[in-house]
């Protein structure tokens, strides 16, 4: 049973990609319909997987001795991520029907979106490190293709290439770790590695652990690899919802959660993970405060919330991190799709030109405020509960500086969230526009996601049961116990107070203008990305000049290229003959 559902969850979106592409760009209505059908079918089969989770290997494809077997396992953690990817992916596809109406090359768009969804499901459901790497790379490729979808726009192309390069460099860490594991244990099975991790020599384990951390940090846009995510906002908004809420950035957090039992004994690893999480959360929150592009604010908030998830893993609680991933996927998708509705209606992403939209777009305002409330951590929305869990785990098991940093981060989050909501929906209109509220194809996913934001925290009990089978050391807990624990914990009051402080700071911003002036230098640094963008530009400049210098060797004549190859072969032969590799 599980085998069938796994095949359907990965195969249906991929089959849909092929079918939509073959349908041809002359039939856009057919393409829209087919994409929705296949995405929803994938989502349904993902939900069906929830009923058949087990830690046993569900599908095993022997492919010869060299690569081990290709296995797929439907355990709780993997199924959870597959469900997130396919369900939110299908909502994004439904949203695209309206958002991409009239756009050209829909076949390319939908094919890559569906490929993406299938690849993410495959990444979560596979039990072989080699297949994990394969799906990792497929998500990198499809995300590049989607970010640069408007390939006549140089900013989009540049954003796509940046995302590709940074995530690929991270992928090297994953590949290196996988190869080292295979070299030592003789198997690519994740379960074999988790069981036999103690047998590895300590320094090897450290290399693998930090290699995986680099890969996860690059994929999930953690510092210092966070620069690609804001530039990836050039993608069409449903794609941003897909990449930044539902799928790709969750892959890094999933990697850390999956391999945490093997790496927690590596000295310094958990501290490094927590440090990465805290630094990222604070850095991104600062950058969100000064950003004027609506999607950029959401991008920075994604990075910041991912920092929370990573920090939770650094404190040893996969449950907290995955629960926050759950809430975040729902409310971040809601925020992105809401922003998409706004951008689609107004035509610009600049918040300074918005304002007063609440009157024209009441539905969007309501759902956006719900999502923003969850982001800020206002009860009883799902973001509040999951963020509280993260903070509590941080207080109980993590370093104190981490907890304080995350608390400050919560306050900053509330501040920039209030700023974003106010600039877009309230106040006096700063631009001239005729707008309309969201049409049905856009409204349905928005309403569904808003309903989710209000209610998914109730699923804590079943959620912990789901994960308890997959992650060692995780205990099932009922929703009621969890709720009462959070409500009665004094740390909760502290967090609520900080959030209230953040909201109040925005409200009273005119009175606080003195502080704002004092922090102006910090604000400017934040706008420049705290120097990380400068590093990127420097690296790019060096590469460019090296490439220009080497251009002279490219004569373009095939015969000379072949002569080059022949010359290299002769050199290799001489080395072999001389060095005596016999």
């Amino acid at each position: 049973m599980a085998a069938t559902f796994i095949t359907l969850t990965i195969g249906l979106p991929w089959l849909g990609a092929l079918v939509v592409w073959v349908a041809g760009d002359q039939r856009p209505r057919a393409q829209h319909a087919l994409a929705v059908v296949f995405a929803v079918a994938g989502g349904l089969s993902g939900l069906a997987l929830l009923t058949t989770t087990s830690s046993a290997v569900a599908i095993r494809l022997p492919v010869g001795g060299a690569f081990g077997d290709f296995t797929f396992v439907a355990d709780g953690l993997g199924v959870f991520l597959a469900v997130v990817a396919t369900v939110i992916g299908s909502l994004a596809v439904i949203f695209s029907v309206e958002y991409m109406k009239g756009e050209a090359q829909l076949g390319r768009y939908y094919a890559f979106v569906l490929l993406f969804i299938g690849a993410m499901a495959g990444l979560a459901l596979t039990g072989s490190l080699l297949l994990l790497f394969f799906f990792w790379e497929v998500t990198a490729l499809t995300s590049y293709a989607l970010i640069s979808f408007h390939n006549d726009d140089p900013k989009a192309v540049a954003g796509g290439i940046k995302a590709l390069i940074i995530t690929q460099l991270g992928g090297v860490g994953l590949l290196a770790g996988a190869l080292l594991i295979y070299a030592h244990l003789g198997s690519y099975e994740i379960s074999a590695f988790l069981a036999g991790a103690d047998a590895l020599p300590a320094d090897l384990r450290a290399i693998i652990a930090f290699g995986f951390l680099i890969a996860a940090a690059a994929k999930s846009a953690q510092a210092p690899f966070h620069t690609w995510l804001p530039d990836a906002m050039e993608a069409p908004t449903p794609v941003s919802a897909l990449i930044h809420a539902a799928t790709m950035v969750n892959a890094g957090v999933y990697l850390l959660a999956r391999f945490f039992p093997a790496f927690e004994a590596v000295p310094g690893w958990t501290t490094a993970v927590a440090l990465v999480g805290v630094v990222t959360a604070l850095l991104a929150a600062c950058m969100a405060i000064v950003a004027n592009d609506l999607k950029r604010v959401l991008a920075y908030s994604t990075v910041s919330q991912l920092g929370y998830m990573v920090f939770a893993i650094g404190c040893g609680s996969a449950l907290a991190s995955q629960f926050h991933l759950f809430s975040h996927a729902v409310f971040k998708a809601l925020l992105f799709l809401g922003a998409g509705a706004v951008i689609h209606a107004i035509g610009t992403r600049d918040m300074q030109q918005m304002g007063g939209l609440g009157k024209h777009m009441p539905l969007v305002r309501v759902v956006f405020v719900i999502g923003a409330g969850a982001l800020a951590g206002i009860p009883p929305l799902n973001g509040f509960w999951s963020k509280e869990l993260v903070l509590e785990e941080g207080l109980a098991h993590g370093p104190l500086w981490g907890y304080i940093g995350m608390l400050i981060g919560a306050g900053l989050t509330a501040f920039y969230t209030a700023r974003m909501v106010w600039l877009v929906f309230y106040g006096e209109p700063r631009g001239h526009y005729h707008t309309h509220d969201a049409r049905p194809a856009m409204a349905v996913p928005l309403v569904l996601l808003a309903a989710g934001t209000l209610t998914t925290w109730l699923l804590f009990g079943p959620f912990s049961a789901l994960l308890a089978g997959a992650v060692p050391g995780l205990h099932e807990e009922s929703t009621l116990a969890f709720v009462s624990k959070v409500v009665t914990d004094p740390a909760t009051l502290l967090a609520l107070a900080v959030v209230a402080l953040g909201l109040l700071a925005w409200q009273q911003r005119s009175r606080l203008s003195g502080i704002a002036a004092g922090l102006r230098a910090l604000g400017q640094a934040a706008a420049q990305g705290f120097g990380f963008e400068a590093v990127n530009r420097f690296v790019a400049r060096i590469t460019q000049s090296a490439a220009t210098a080497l251009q002279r060797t490219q004569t373009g004549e095939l015969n000379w290229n072949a002569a080059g190859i022949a010359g290299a072969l002769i050199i290799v032969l001489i080395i072999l003959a001389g060095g005596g590799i016999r």
Partner: protein
Amino acid sequence: MSLSPIAIALLGVAILLGIGFYGLLVARNLIKLIVVLQILAKAAMLAFLAAGSAQEQMGLAQSMVVTVIVADTVVAVIALALAVQVKRRYGTLDVRKLTNLRG
């Protein structure tokens, strides 16, 4: 000469590879280059089979040769389609004139 069949085959491999490289360096017609690629592939196949014959592992060697045949036929197909398109667009198959990739 009392060379074993395997030795003769390996000698053939070396000579064919050399001929193939000469062809790569000297051929001017795009389709002639594809012919040269085929020759190089045959040399590689012969090398695999010679090694397999020496090691008594003909099953493995033959499966690799089948892989090479498939791959290199696909390469020939695509290369010929490309050559046809090149001829249509640029009007010439002369490799010296097709220097769009000049850096």
